[in-house]
């Protein structure tokens, strides 16, 4: 019945068409607002890549989105939809801050950083643990529980930051600034030999950590027995059960890895930029991860470029808002929604048309399979 399309259409052309449609609609909205979409796009690209400073910010945001995108993708592979990346990242920030606040005057940064990574991963994983267990053991829908946990995380953090962790009432709900022992290096040493001056952009070594994690996740999912079990469960839970794959354990462990990745996102803004824990530092990055994972087809090799694209949208969008005050950063939220809609919910919309076109144009030199 279904004729297979070559891989370059499945993984290249179709996602590209979806993306183009999403951006065309965003362009229409720009037109509706009364601005020139082509000029807006030019300003956006210039803002994101036109200077070392812009590039630094683009990659800084991309770092965050690689983590949250990997988190969502990890869960996708097991057939789980982790909407709770935002909450897990928020709580992950608490882990980072607790480590930094307790050791930043004793240890050098290269000892603080690994501890902070552990703190972030542990807290993020812990926040994903309860929804995971409830899904695995009691069948509570993980989408709903993770949404609820986002709100609970937000309440917990407001309570802590406006109470026990607050330094002074005048500065508002945030911790004290971290000392030198919790300042991680920027990446100027990497980019200045290339002739790129990152300026005051906050791009830091967390970027490298994100790339390492992307590689490790690829290794885990496609090159280990555990990854094989995860993918089996995600593709066909019944077959997985018959094959004796321990469903409960896979769900719980996958979700905890997912939560850990989301939590590690906090390293970037908390340690790499703000040097303190403050309210809403996640800025919706957990949700951007959904768009990134869908666009990157849950594969690290797709997630990294997708994260850079969204990083560019964030940075370029901020610059764009200077020149076109009517196009606020809310534009990115809209684009995010459109990307999720077209690359996610309607990913198969153009497939029948493309399939028809492909086979009618005689691109398939091999004989089409017989209809079964």
């Amino acid at each position, binding site marked *: 019945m279904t004729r297979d399309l070559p891989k370059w259409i499945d993984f290249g052309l179709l996602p590209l068409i979806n993306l183009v449609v999403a951006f065309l609609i965003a362009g229409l909205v720009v037109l509706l607002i009364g601005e020139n979409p082509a000029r807006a796009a030019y300003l956006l690209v210039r803002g994101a890549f036109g200077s070392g400073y812009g590039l630094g910010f683009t990659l800084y945001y991309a770092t965050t989105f690689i983590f949250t995108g990997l988190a969502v993708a990890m869960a996708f592979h097991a057939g789980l939809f982790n909407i709770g990346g935002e909450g897990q990242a928020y709580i992950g920030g608490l882990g980072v801050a607790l480590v930094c606040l307790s050791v930043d005057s004793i240890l050098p940064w290269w000892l603080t950083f690994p501890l902070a990574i552990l703190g972030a991963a542990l807290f993020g994983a812990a926040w994903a643990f*309860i929804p995971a267990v409830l899904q695995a053991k009691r069948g*509570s829908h993980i*989408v709903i529980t993770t949404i609820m946990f986002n709100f609970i995380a937000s309440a917990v953090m407001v309570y802590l930051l406006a109470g026990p962790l607050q330094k002074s009432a005048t500065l508002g709900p945030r911790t004290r600034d971290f000392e030198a022992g919790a300042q991680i290096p920027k990446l100027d040493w990497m980019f200045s030999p290339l002739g790129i001056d990152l300026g005051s952009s906050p791009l830091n070594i967390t970027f490298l950590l994100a790339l390492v994690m992307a590689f490790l996740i690829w290794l885990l999912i496609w090159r280990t027995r555990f990854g094989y079990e995860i993918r089996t469960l995600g593709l066909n839970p019944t077959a997985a059960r018959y094959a004796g794959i321990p469903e409960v354990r896979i769900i719980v462990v996958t979700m905890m890895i997912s939560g850990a990745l989301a939590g590690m996102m906090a390293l970037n803004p908390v340690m790499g930029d703000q040097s303190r824990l403050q309210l809403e530092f996640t800025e919706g990055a957990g949700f951007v991860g*959904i768009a990134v994972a869908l666009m990157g087809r849950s594969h690290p090799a797709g997630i990294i470029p997708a994260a850079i694209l969204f990083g560019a949208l964030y940075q370029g969008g901020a610059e764009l808002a200077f020149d076109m005050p009517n196009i606020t950063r809310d534009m990115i939220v*809209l684009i995010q929604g459109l990307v999720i809609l077209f690359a*996610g919910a309607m990913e198969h919309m153009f497939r029948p048309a493309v399939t028809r076109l492909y086979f009618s144009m005689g691109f398939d030199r091999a004989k089409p399979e017989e209809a079964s």
Partner: protein
Amino acid sequence: MDTLIQILDLTARSAIPLLLACLAGLYSERSGIFDIGLEGKMLAGAFFAAAAAAVTGNAWLGLLAGIAASVCFALVHGFASITNRGNQIVSGVAINFSAAGLTALLGQSWFSQGGRTPQLGSEQRFGPLELPFAEALSEVPVIGQIYAELISGHNLIAYFAFAMVPITWWVLFKTRFGLRLRAVGENPAAVDTAGVSVVWARYRAVIVCGILCGIAGAYLSIGLQAGYVKNMTAGRGFIALAALIFAKWRPVEAMWACLLFGFLSAVEIRYQGVELPLVGVLPVQLVQALPYILTVVLLAGFIGKATPPRAGGVPYVKER
């Protein structure tokens, strides 16, 4: 007595948008279409209602615009999840973001007030209605007070919301439309075999969901408040979703769940920072998080079992 009535009045006011959104979700989810996009549809409803009311000067046109916008988003959700058989959760997430982005952008570009709409006058919104004899009865202790201050004095949409509870019950359980709607949510193949269109039944449910979400949004921007402020639904769509699960997808229980969550929000507003006997100062955040915590506990199966419609979230593929 006065404090109690004040709290109950506040409860009702907080519960009404929840109730409308919750009933909206009820129609959709009972037909097998999960909807986590209630928030986005409410937001669109609130913005377009206030925008149209501000421009035309007429509350009714505002309400219509709010409903129309919300239905548009509902149809996108329907198109993605019914026609394209896409993932309903993903589509719902997309609706929420698209609506949040679009309303903020258009708000800024149309009115240049940082995403707000202009302040609305009394002609442009649904004002409180004085029920008959409320004035006369307000002197009567207890009953008269309750009648005059709690039951009377809400706007039209508020009474509509509570009227929708028995109406929804009747529609779902006593009409052919309701029977089919529930059937496509439980066993679409059987409905299909009977010669009834699954697609059309689900689309109708999704449209009803859009209408009610639009009204819920309009209640916020041109009923309760005089104008739209950016992101004014502030998570109410998700609380409504929680209430829907809490009510186990049933209309009358939905009302009680919304009143309970409304009561929590009333307590939060009324007792912020007030020293209570035995409890001490109530952490606001705990009260705010309580609806979510309760829903998780319920989902965990510790207070009864919340079983969603059987075919919920599964796109229907006709057998070939």
